[in-house]
């Protein structure tokens, strides 16, 4: 291949929704029109991770990093950069504090990252199996088929120290070993791609950007445990990932890497997709299996564990997308190499979806044990709009918060648990001073109450009770006893609920009570929401001395409850005010008071 330039266009959902596909087509057309198709290849890749700057176009070998590109920029990119060799300055990414344009390697968002799982995301065309193969793809499967006994694969995973990336952190080799040892007519490999945690999209990006890594790992798992069939249970809300997976499966079959007699061996393995239908509880493994079986996705008591009695009563391995994506690399580069990354108990890397009140939101992969401060400030670039950092939430509706005093905590399974949070699937949501902890906690409880399947009473009744109390508190109707009551209900749910959803549902409350009880107390004792978020506890007033009567707030008010003569101080009708805060936001003279 004699291409002199490669133009990589990010094809993740985020950029795609911002016309990345149109940019891609415009670039191809430009390249063709300028008769450069022998010198330049335009590739649509998986997610680059730097979603806040999208759509992104990267040009190799110069490593130029163009951000916020629009379709009409295509011509300039080709004419200037490719033909004349002059970078298009206005589109190049710059660090906030520097006037210099950054090459990919210099961008601080990428500097502290270490990409194992995302090794191919943003480099290869995910719709082309040959590009995956060119980067050592399917080499691990070949090794497993012809050079390694199943026990050796399990030993290798054991010494690598890989633990499940879906949340609980269970050692992967043990799951495989149990299933391998279990009796059953048939065995199954299941990939959990039901990424239901709001604010997390690691798995989606892996599937969109590097679908073959998951297929390869599933086949390796099948060979190791003695299964010939795999299912990927994926959210129906991820159409792009579904499409890329379907294409990848078809291509792998065509190449003899899936299907009958893989690579001429006696091993056969097939993968099928099953679509979820929007039920968070289906991320729980027994509920997920019920859903693949076409039933209501309700969990059942364990034991028996799925490794012994899983899909259709047969021994089943269930791993999460990111866990699978680690496996081919471990087998190619060796457990020893993998074991050198991360901490004593938590090996390897973790991908996080860094979102919320953060400058560089996007997908980041860091070695286990990286301090939270590095992620928030060095990679994430800190909090926008000059606001104060308040907390980071990890683990979504099952997790908790980490506060400023713990910013130097190394992120791994153990340390997060000590702080009352969990690793979870990798959502990392940054909150600033304007976010109210009671309000955010209520948001999570809204979620778990809605998503509770209703099978067991602790979750069904306990969750509702907690939600009722939180609603009262956020309206200023709480009583001091509420705090203790929530702790007691929470403990009961943790102990008595049937599955992980109910067991962890009280975590957001217990965690915020631990670090932010003062905020709850303010709501209860003083009917005050310190962050100014809980609508029933704030009111808006016009400060007569500051108001010049410009009338902007009155025009913006959606319920027209602000009145006053022109150039005279205005007034808010408190009866009709819906507390939307629009007047506060638009006033240029600090004449609206939020209290």
């Amino acid at each position, binding site marked *: 291949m004699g291409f002199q330039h490669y133009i990589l266009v990010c094809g993740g959902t*985020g950029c795609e*929704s911002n016309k990345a596909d149109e940019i891609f087509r415009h670039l191809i057309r430009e390249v063709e029109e300028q008769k450069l198709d022998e010198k330049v290849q335009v590739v649509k890749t998986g997610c680059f991770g730097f*979603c806040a700057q999208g759509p992104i176009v990267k040009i190799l070998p110069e490593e130029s990093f163009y951000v916020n590109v629009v379709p009409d920029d295509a011509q300039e990119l080709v004419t200037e950069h490719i033909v004349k060799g002059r970078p298009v300055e206005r589109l190049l990414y710059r660090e906030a504090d520097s006037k210099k344009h950054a090459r990919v390697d210099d961008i601080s968002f990428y500097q502290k990252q270490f990409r194992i799982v995302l090794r191919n995301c943003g480099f290869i065309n995910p719709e082309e199996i040959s590009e995956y193969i060119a980067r050592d793809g399917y080499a691990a499967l070949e090794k497993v088929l012809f050079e390694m006994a199943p026990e050796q694969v399990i030993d290798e995973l054991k010494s690598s120290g890989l633990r499940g990336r879906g949340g609980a952190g269970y050692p992967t080799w043990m799951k495989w070993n149990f299933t391998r040892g279990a009796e059953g007519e048939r065995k199954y490999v299941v990939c959990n791609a039901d*990424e239901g945690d709001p*604010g997390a999209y690691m798995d989606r990006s892996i599937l969109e950007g590097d679908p073959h890594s998951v297929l390869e790992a599933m086949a390796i798992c099948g060979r190791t445990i003695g299964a010939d069939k795999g299912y990927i249970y994926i959210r129906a809300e991820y159409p792009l990932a579904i499409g890329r997976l379907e294409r990848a499966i078809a291509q792998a079959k065509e190449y003899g890497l899936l299907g009958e007699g893989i690579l001429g061996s006696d091993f056969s393995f097939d993968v099928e997709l099953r679509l979820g239908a929007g039920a968070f509880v289906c991320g729980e493994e027994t509920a997920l299996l019920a859903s693949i079986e076409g039933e209501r996705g309700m969990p059942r008591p364990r034991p028996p564990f799925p490794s012994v009695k899983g899909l259709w009563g047969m021994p089943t391995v269930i791993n999460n997308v990111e866990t699978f994506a680690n496996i081919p690399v471990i087998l190619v580069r060796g457990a020893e190499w993998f074991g050198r990354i991360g901490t004593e108990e938590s090996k390897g890397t973790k991908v996080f979806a860094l979102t919320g009140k953060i400058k560089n*939101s996007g997908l980041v992969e860091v070695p286990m044990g990286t301090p939270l401060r590095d992620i928030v400030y060095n990679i994430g670039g800190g909090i926008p709009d000059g606001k104060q950092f308040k907390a980071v939430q990890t683990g979504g509706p099952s997790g908790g918060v980490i506060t400023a005093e713990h910013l130097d905590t190394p992120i791994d399974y153990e340390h997060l648990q000590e702080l009352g949070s969990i690793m979870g699937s990798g959502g990392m949501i940054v909150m600033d001073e304007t976010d109210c902890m009671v309000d955010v906690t209520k948001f999570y409880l809204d979620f778990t109450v809605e998503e509770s399947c209703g099978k067991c009473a602790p979750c069904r009744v306990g969750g509702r009770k907690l939600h009722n109390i939180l609603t009262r508190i956020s309206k200023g109707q709480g009583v001091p006893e509420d705090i203790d009551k929530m702790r007691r209900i929470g403990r009961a749910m943790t102990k008595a609920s049937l599955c992980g959803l109910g067991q962890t549902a009280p975590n957001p409350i217990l965690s915020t009570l631990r670090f932010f009880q003062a905020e709850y107390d303010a709501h209860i004792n003083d009917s005050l929401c310190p962050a100014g978020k809980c609508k029933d506890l704030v009111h808006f007033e016009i400060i007569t001395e500051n108001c010049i009567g410009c009338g902007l707030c009155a025009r913006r008010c959606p319920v027209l409850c602000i009145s006053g003569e022109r150039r005279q101080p205005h007034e808010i009708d408190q009866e009709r005010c819906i507390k*939307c805060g629009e007047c506060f936001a638009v006033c240029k003279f600090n004449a609206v008071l939020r209290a």
Partner: protein
Amino acid sequence: MPATAEPTLSKDVLDFINEWRDEPGNLIMILHRVQQEYGFVPREISLLLAKELDVPLARIYGVITFYHFFKLEKPGRNQISVCMGTACYLRGGEDLIQELENLLGIGVNAVTDDGEFSVEAVRCVGCCGLAPVLTVNGEVYGKVTKAQLPDILAKHRDE
């Protein structure tokens, strides 16, 4: 005789059912196909499915009502889904729903009288980097502000 024709399963849906008939656990996949065809799962179709697959209607409804994705009511010609994932919530997803209510006069899970728009709140669509996000008929709009909503609505109303 009532003028309405007897409901039937379209050929495409029937083909799909036949393809999946012997697959274990096929019901959810078939319901996905039905919803793709009709935009929701009409009661008459569920009755036909029960006969076709030889399963009780109650089981089909059990599954439909368990999963948020399946709808029993016909949605608007344009389906607006406002993301209420955590990142979008923190960045003002709720304000978008409020503003849509002001503009369209309907709340969440409702359809406008003319059948043009329906609004729903959905779980994370996975574009957290672009929060707040909404989708109209699957097309994603990122970093949406309240001020952009009238234009977004107008664009789809005219389509």
